[in-house]
């Protein structure tokens, strides 16, 4: 199983309701349904991925995360998942806040643009990072946003979002320390209390 899926699986409560934003072919949802008895649905923009979701027995809505998210009532899911999709949305702040409105807790998985290999490429080679987890050249990347795990932490601070947990992934393993330097991917578990 993919390490990011494993981390989400390990940190999700049994029988939860889940909304997966940018669910792809529904693989993660399938895992959560099978392993944790979750129920859930996904949002996906790619038509071909929709066929695969349905083949995987997943209920899915075809559309943009930004607009589809508006259709759900407040706190209608135990968890909302934004795994490897945040960097591709037009308005990430709106989407994260929307996800925190719809879900009681939110998983966000983001690629770390400031992982050490990337930093090396920037500093020594003078090119923007192209690595295993960031395989795209600047001219054909689906990514609209380039951020580090530290940047994301700062974003949460500004938006008064509580970070319940962070796990960094390096290769196929969990990065034990200094994840902003060593992790290729970071998985955050977030919560936002509206009583202010």
């Amino acid at each position, binding site marked *: 199983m993919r390490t990011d899926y494993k981390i989400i699986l390990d940190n999700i409560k049994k029988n939860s309701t889940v909304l997966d934003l940018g669910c792809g072919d529904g693989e993660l949802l399938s895992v959560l349904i099978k392993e944790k008895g979750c129920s859930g649905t996904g949002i996906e923009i790619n038509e071909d991925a*929709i066929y695969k979701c*349905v083949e995987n*027995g997943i*209920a899915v809505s*075809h559309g943009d995360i930004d607009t589809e998210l508006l*259709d759900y009532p407040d706190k209608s899911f135990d968890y909302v998942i934004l795994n490897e999709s945040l960097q591709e949305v037009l308005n990430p702040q709106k989407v994260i806040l929307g996800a925190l409105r719809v879900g009681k807790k939110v998983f966000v998985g983001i690629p770390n643009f400031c992982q050490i290999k990337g930093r090396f490429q920037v500093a020594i080679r003078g090119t923007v990072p192209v690595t295993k987890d960031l395989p795209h050249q600047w001219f054909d990347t689906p990514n609209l946003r380039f951020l580090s795990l530290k940047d994301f932490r700062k974003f949460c601070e500004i938006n008064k979002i509580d970070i319940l947990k962070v796990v960094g992934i390096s290769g196929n393993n969990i990065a034990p320390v200094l994840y902003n330097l060593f992790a290729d991917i970071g998985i955050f578990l977030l919560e936002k209390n509206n009583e202010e």
Partner: protein
Amino acid sequence: MKKELGIIETKYFTFAEVPNELVLKSGEKLGPITLAYETYGELNKDKSNAILVLHALSGDAHAAGLKKDDKKPGWWDNMIGPGKAFDTNKYFVICSNVIGGCKGSTGPSSINPKTNKSYGLSFPVVTIEDMVNAQKYLIDSLGIEKLLSVVGGSMGGMQVLQWALSYTDNVKSAIAIATSVRHTAQQIAFHEVGREAIMTDPDWQGGDYYGKTAPARGLSVARMIGHITYMSEESMEEKFGRKLKDKERLGYDFSSDFEIEGYLKYRGDSFVQRFDANSWLYISKALDYFNLKEKTKLSNVFKDVKSSFLVISFTSDWLYPRYQSKDIVKALKINGKDVTDIEIKSSYGHDAFLVEAESQSKIISHYLDRIYKA
């Protein structure tokens, strides 16, 4: 496992005999009523594999297979049959005609038993709700308590929505294709032009033309307008472009120059052979009257539905555009219902639901798998 459907026969179910007539939405009564229907595949022991297929404005009960002497199979033959999306080796598929129609069910061209003459315009105005209420009698008569699925495109999709709302306990899943919760001004406008064409045809005679000359020119024009709205600019351009019909250069007169002109005329003329002008008036009216938002907002309307939903739309369908499908999806999501939706890429316009068998099959067969297992 069967490989073919075999020879199909249309069946007829009659009910609502006097004095137990069906009370229509308008308050008027209709009875006795006959519904034409066809079935494909076998109903299983616990009657849990029945799928009801509902047709569009000009459709009929003959959805699949060949009847005796048929040259062309039913209108959704690419979707219904052994190994197809609606796999008749697995499911029992029923296709029901509608009241108001002219394909074997009670409609304006039927004989009114009270007068022994065709109803004509004395036939009461029927709604989508009335059509569905009539179909419920048919499903009851087959001993089916819960339909595995109700499916249809365009007007068929409206019936699907109405089924899920009117008979919440009897519909396990609803597949609504290229449809809407109500007709917009534009959709009504196209229908009105068609109705005007029929009613201004001198042969229409206030609807009393049975046994005389039918208002063929009017109905043909209505069908031509319909066809334009069912296609897309792209599909028309691809099929016809500016190609000339049977001539080398423009005629500089008002005979047909372009292939598209000949095509529309041909479609209009052949339609007149198989459809009744008054039925067109009645059924188009039923579509225009359909409005699920009549009393309250949509999210309230779908609050109590119990079915799972699959909502399908097509990129080039400008008659029932994507946002109208999304309205249904939104109302279901707000209520936490199980819903899947897809916009299928197609250049065929509204007709796509009849043509795009491959992509629809991929979605529908797997969706039904899940529903059947659940």
